[in-house]
Structures are given as C-alpha cells and as structure tokens.
C-alpha cells in the first residue's frame, strides 16, 4: 500500500494538514488518517481493529482501577476511620490481583481469540479434514474469512500494552481515541514494528512544529527503504518465484541459489518496509523503534534473533518467555526435575520449555501452515543445541585463545549464521515441509548433477542487467551495513559537504526511479511481512 501513487498523494496531503492545523488536533488527524488508510485497504477491516482497541482499552482501565484501589486501601484509613490491618491489606491486594488476572485473561482470550479465529480456523479444519479423509468421513467445509491487514501486529501491540498495564510498567491511557491511535498508527499497521506504549506514546501524542530536518530525514529513510524494496527485493523476487515454482527442475545448486536469493530478498523487503515506516513516522515528528540492527553480521543464531525483527523478539521474550519460565506449572516441573535428575536439569527445564513454546508460537504467528510450525521449532532446537554446546565452545576458545578475536574466525561465524538461517528459510521458499526437506538433501546430493550455469540463471527471468543491478544493490546494502558499525551512516552523510550529500541522495533517487521494479507491467509485490 505504501508503494502506490494514491498513497503518495495521501501522505503529502496529510503532512500538509498535520502542520497547518492546530497542534492539539495533530494526534486526532493521525487517528482519522489511520482509519481512512485502513478502510481504503478494505472497508471491513476497521471493525476488527476497533474491537481490539475497545476491549484492550476497557480492560486496561479496569485493571488500572484495581491497582488504584489496592494502593488506596494500602494507604488507608478507610471510610470507617480505622486503618486496615496488615492481613486485611494483604487479603485485599490478593483479591484485587485475582480480579486483575481475570480481566487480563478475559481480554487476552477475546483478542487472541479473534486473531486465532480468523487466522487459524481454516488451518484447523484442514488438519481435521486430513484425519476425516483417512477415516472416510465427510469433510468439513472451509470458512471464507477476511484476515484484516496487520492483525497480528496490532493485536500484539495492544496486548503488550495490556501486559504493561497489568504489571504497572506504563501509564494508562484514559482517552479512548488516543489509545485507538496507538493501536492504529497507520505507518506501522502494515508490517510493524510492534511498538511499546511507553516508547511510542512519548512522541505520538506530542505537539509537533514543522521542522524541515524531520521531513528531510524521513524522506531519506523512505528513499533508502524504496531502494531496498523496489531495486533489490522485487527484482530478486521475480527470479526466486521461478525457482520456487519448479523445485523438480531447480534442484542441486539451485537450492543454494534460492537460499541466497531469499536471504537477500527477505532482508531487503522487510528492512525496506520498516525504513519506509520509520521514515513516514519521522516526517510527523514521531519516533518508531528500530526493528533491525545489521542482523546478517550476527555471530550466532541467538544474536541474530536479537537483531532481526527486534520488536517481535522482545515481545515474545517479555510477554511470553519470562512469564512462561516462571509460571507455576513450569516451576513444578523444575522441582520435579531437581528431585529426580539434579540441578542441571532443573535449571534447564524452565528455560527450554519456555524456549520451545515461544518458538512454536513464533512459527504459528508467521502463518497457519505446518512448515511455519516446523520452522519455528527448528529455530528453537538450534538455539538449545547452541546453548548446550556453549561450554564446548568455551573450552575450544580457552585452548586457542587467539582464534576467537581473529577476523577470519568472526567472518566464519557470520557466514555460518547466515547459512544456517538461510537453510531454515527454505521452508518459507518452498512452502511445504516435505519439499523443503527433499530440496535440502538435494542441495548436497545433486549439487553437481544440475550445475548453475549462466544460461540457467538467465532462465530465471533475470537478464544480465538485472544481475548487475542486483549485485550493485547488494554491495550498497553491505557497505551501508558495514558503515553502520561505527555509528549512523545517515549522520556520517549529514556531516559531509552539501555537494556530497546532494550527490548521494540524488543518486539514490535516480537509482530507485530507473532501476526500481514498479509501474505498468510489473506486479509490485506486497511486502512479505504483510501476510503475517
């Protein structure tokens, strides 16, 4: 939706109005614009968003009142004039905590329920039908749902807020419309990031004066996002599509080619989209959190997941992993393990249980398909294996102390991580567990039988010029990422003389204009993360 002429017009008009109207109306304008944007995608979407906003807002307010009551009771004295005893305070607090929990669970049930219902009902029916088919019974019919755009993102964002209110980590937003803006802020509706209320609210409701620097900075970011998306991701996507559509033909070395193509495409697509999101928000003077920190320079898979889709990773960590690992059932298992298997097992069980659960849900969050489930679990297993092997690595590095700090070893770690993550993404490329496993095996067993020749590469629908453009584009990505290690590349560019800055941005503009895959005759692909 971001990459369309109507959206450019919409954004231009909106920015104009935003800075022309009185500052106190700015947040309201964003709210209206958000709903207009959402309704333009499909008029049936807004009621879903409203339902989430309304229930979470109400629940948060209710929970907040319970917290207030607890605090007031603690302070005393009561209406009767007597200060409550310690036991009374404790009992009241426990009563309120229970109530808060019930409200939280009810609201979670409602919202996760909506998400699960629209996203996973047909998945369940599909699996039930597989069983019914084998037993010879009549199959269930599928339900034609609409899946609101970005439902996973806004639901998680709203639920995150609810948890924060429950844990009294953030202030409660008492204005319903303002809260609705938090859930519906349009730049991040499409593909996140999943913002935290405590961060986004700092600038979301503020009064912003027109500042040329914000506009310029936002435009720079949008331009770079468009470069990633249109010049690299969509061009690469065309070749990848051919390759993935015919796995029987494109086997052996082509599996590896597809793996690398997808690694580049997904990175360019997702980070490009986030760049556009952050850039748009910047133009309104609103700060949206970064979602990526050079993930392809990670030295291991755990680090990779701390640097890729950060807002999702931290969401699962804070709202699922931690609560799960200290939950009563997990604690009970830990005690049981301690008794029967020793301290090591007791220490591992809560962490490992929570890890696998988080990755199972992460997989499902990405889509209602078994291959996503397997992908998620595979990530979890690799993380746990990596954790188990840590002492071994430590011993290795103690034996070869100079090796760990060497450039070559660091490069090895980076490539290892990229290859590992790319292998896991084969699930996403082929969209089937069976095909993925077969192709993975063929990558090694049939590597020589189907050599990757220039002719075959041209058969992917990419011309020599396309490969040159892709090569140059990837080089730019690598250089910018490398440059980003020593601080912000944009800041470095801003410190340069005007002529240099001008040349950089004008070149980027013309690169997008001329080498971008867009316009008549092209199917500009949706951002990959839209589907989640």
């Amino acid at each position, binding site marked *: 939706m971001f990459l369309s002429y109507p959206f450019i017009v919409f954004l231009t008009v909106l920015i104009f109005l935003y800075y022309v109207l009185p500052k106190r109306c700015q947040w309201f304008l964003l709210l209206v614009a958000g709903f207009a944007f959402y309704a333009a995608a499909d008029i049936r979407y807004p009621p879903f968003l409203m339902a989430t906003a309304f229930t979470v807002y109400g629940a948060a307010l209710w929970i907040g009142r319970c917290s207030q009551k607890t605090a007031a009771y603690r302070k005393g004295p009561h209406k009767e004039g007597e200060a409550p005893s310690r036991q009374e305070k404790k009992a009241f607090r426990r009563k309120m905590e229970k109530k808060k929990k019930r409200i939280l669970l009810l609201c979670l049930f409602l919202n996760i329920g909506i998400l699960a219902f629209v996203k996973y009902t047909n998945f369940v029916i599909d699996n039930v039908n597989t069983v019914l088919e084998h037993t010879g019974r009549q199959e269930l019919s599928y339900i034609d749902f609409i899946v609101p755009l970005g439902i996973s993102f806004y639901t998680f964002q709203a639920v995150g807020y609810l948890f924060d209110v429950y844990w009294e980590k953030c202030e409660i937003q008492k204005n319903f419309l303002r809260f609705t803006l938090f859930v519906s802020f349009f730049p991040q509706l499409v593909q996140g990031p999943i913002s935290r209320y405590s961060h986004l609210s700092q600038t979301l409701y503020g009064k912003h004066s027109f500042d040329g620097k914000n506009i310029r900075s936002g435009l720079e970011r949008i331009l770079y996002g468009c470069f990633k998306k249109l010049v690299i991701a969509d061009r690469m996507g065309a070749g990848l599509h051919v390759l993935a559509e015919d796995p029987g033909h494109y086997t052996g070395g082509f599996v590896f080619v597809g793996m690398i193509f997808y690694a580049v495409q997904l990175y360019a697509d997702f980070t490009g989209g986030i760049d556009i999101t952050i850039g748009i928000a910047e133009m309104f003077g609103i700060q949206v959190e970064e979602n990526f920190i050079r993930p392809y320079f990670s030295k291991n898979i755990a680090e990779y997941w701390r640097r890729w889709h950060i807002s999702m990773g931290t969401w699962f960590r804070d709202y699922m992993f931690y609560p799960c690992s200290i939950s009563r059932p997990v604690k009970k298992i830990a005690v049981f393990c301690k008794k029967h298997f020793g301290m090591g097992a007791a220490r591992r069980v809560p962490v490992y249980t929570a890890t696998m659960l988080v990755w199972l849900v992460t997989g499902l969050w990405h889509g209602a398909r078994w291959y996503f489930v397997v992908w998620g679990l595979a990530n979890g297993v690799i993380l746990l294996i990596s954790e188990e092997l840590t002492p071994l690595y430590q011993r290795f590095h103690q034996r070869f102390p100079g090796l760990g700090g060497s450039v070559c070893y660091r490069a090895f770690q980076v490539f290892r991580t990229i290859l590992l993550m790319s292998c896991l993404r084969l699930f996403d490329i082929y969209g089937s567990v069976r095909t993925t496993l077969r192709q993975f095996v063929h990558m090694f067993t049939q590597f020589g039988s189907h050599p990757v020749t220039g002719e075959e590469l041209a058969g992917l629908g990419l011309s020599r*010029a396309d490969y040159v453009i892709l090569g140059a584009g990837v080089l730019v990505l690598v250089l910018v990422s490398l440059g980003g290690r020593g601080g912000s590349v944009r800041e470095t560019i801003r410190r340069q003389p005007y002529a240099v800055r001008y040349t950089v941005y004008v070149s980027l503009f013309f690169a997008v204009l*001329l080498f971008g895959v867009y316009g008549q*005759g092209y199917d500009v692909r949706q951002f990959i993360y839209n589907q989640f």
Partner: protein
Amino acid sequence: MMDIIKKAKKPAAGVISVGVFLVLFLGIQRLVVPKYADGLPEGNFTAEYYDETTDHDVILIGDCEVYENIDPICLWSEYGITSYIRGNAQQLAWQSYYMLEDTLRFETPRVVIYNVQALVHDRPQKEEYNRMTLDGMQWSPVKWKAIQASLCEEEDFLDYIFPVLRYHNRITGLQKEDFTYFHKRKKVTHNGYYMRIDVLPVSKSDVADISWLPGGEKEPAGENPGGQEDPYDIDDPWGEIEEAHADEPELQSDTITDKKRRETFGRLPMEYLDRIRRLCEEKGIRLILMKAPSLAPRWYESDNRQVVEYAERYDLPYINFYDLLEETGLDYEKDTYDGGLHMNLSGADKLTKYLGKVLAEDYHMPDHRKDPRYASIYRQKEKFYQDMITVQQAELERFGEIRSY
C-alpha cells in the same frame, strides 16, 4: 558585502540544486522515452504536426486507414489542396475527437475527413497504441482529457505526466536511436502520411481474405451472426508493432480481437462521432466520413449500414472505398504492401486522386499551387517525399525489403 554573499549562498545553492535535479530528471526522462525512429516510426506521427508552418484546407483523422491510404503530397501535387493527416495506429474514436480538438487550437480547416473503422471499438484497447497516439501530443487541457478518455485499466495518468515512470525499465536496454534522437526527432511522415513503396500482393499473403468484397464470393447474409467466429482472428495487423515491443512487458492481453463481435457500434464511439460532428458544425467545417478499402479488419455490412444511416441522418457525405474499387482502379495485387491491410504508395495515390477529385469538384477546394505562401514549403515537402522514395527503392533493391521506415 560578505554578509550578503553569505546570506545569498543558501538560496543560491537551493536554486542550483533544484535546477540540476530538474535537468537530470528531464534528461533521463528524455533518454528512456521511446524515440519511435527506426523500429517503430508510428509513435512519431502526433508530434510531427506541431512542426507545420502552414494551415491546411483538409484534416484527416482516424487510424492507420488514413495515414497509410491517403497521401497529402499527392493531393497537393495533383490538386493543390493542402491537407494533413492526424492519424495514429489504432486511433480510437475519442482519440480522433481530441486530435481534432487539438488541431483546432491551431487552425480551422474547411473539411475534416473521418475514417470510420475505429467505430467498432467501444473501449480502450492497448496501452502501446495509447502511448503512440498521446505521448507526442502537446500538453494542453485537450491532452489531459484525451488521456483520461483513453486510459486502459492498468494504466495510470501519472505515467503520462512523467513518462519516466512508465519507461524507466528501458534504461537497461537503450539502443543507438535513443542517443541519436535524444535532441531531435526523425521526420517520418509526409503531412501525416506514412509512405511504403513495397508490394505484397493479397494472393501471396495469408492475412486477409478478398472473397467478401463486392464481386467476391460473399459469406451467407454477410451480417455476421452473433455467434460466428470472429474474422478478426484471421490476422493481427498490429503484429509487427507488438513484435517491436517484444522487449517491453506485456501489458494487456485483450486486444482488437474481441471474441464476441457486436452487431451495433458501442455507445462510446458513437458519442464521440457525435462530438466530432457537432464540433465541425460549431466551427463551420464540412465533415466527411470515409472508409478505406483495407481487407482486414473486415468491414461488415452491418457496420457499413450503421455509418450509412448516420450519414443520411445528419446529411454527411460518406465515401466508402470498398464500393469504389472500379473508380479508383485499386489492385490488391499491386497496391498494397502487406497483403491488403494497408495501401502502398501506388494504392494510396489511387485513393488520393479520387478523393482529391471529389474535394475539388464537390467542395471547391482552392488550388494553392501558385500561392507563394505554400509553394516553397511544399517544394521542400515534395523533395523530402522524393528522397524517401529513392531511399526506399534503394533499400528494396539492396535488401529486398524496406528497413529504415
């Protein structure tokens, strides 16, 4: 003084930046826009009109059936009638209307001749024809309206305002002509007439069927019953154009070959025919309807009847060249360069001479041959005309085909 220089530095840098950006933008846009010079000259027709320095007594509007079948230079040399063809490949009825409106911004002819073939199309057909017709049109409210009326489903108005948005993908496939004709245009027509001197007899071509012509073996009723196979399928006169565009993305698959042919013309083309008629009435211009004798696409009796009825209703002359094969002396074995679809120079001159006679005798068109305002200009035009004949003859002798045009 230093203060003034300091203060002026920022605005000056801003102006220079914008200027450099605009120059780059326009330069790159010019570079990637198709030049329609060597491979596909049809895209140049519209723009050439604006180079004209004299007015014209007759303006012809329509599709290829005018720009390949009527020869304004012949009309000049035989009758001293000044004329110009504002026609383009598959120029649809609404485009012809706006082409006329555009022409009337510069001059008011005595006669407008409209070739009726395009009335069979009731909706925009293909992007490439739209672009060839409209890209060359000077910017004015007329062009704005012409684009609005012509847009195919997948087209975007903004792509016409900034053609680089449409043609940006050509950057990786630029050819010599993109640089050769960066600054200039290659003149390809003679007052809108696209000349071809080669011959492809209808008997040696499988693209057209002569049997349905008067005197030929007609099909039953000749009325095109609704469910009948579409004779448009027998050929695709735009094939070569599509071939030339083969490196560009395929944009819209539904084309001239509508599988279900309608018995009556659509509402839209008839509405624009009305507008053409009313515009001519307002300006005191005599409107003549014409049908060129092309063998494909087939001109049905039902089509013809509608035009006849319309012409009778509004008292418009209608010259149907299918009925004038004897008078014109047209020979499909000698006078066509593509098996009967379009006339070659010989065929065009036969039709033109007949038309000129009608214009001179029935409409009393003045003979300007002795008028010094036109004589010197048309001398140059005739020289260019003769030069092109010479070049085409040389190419025919050398290569057995015409390559430059």
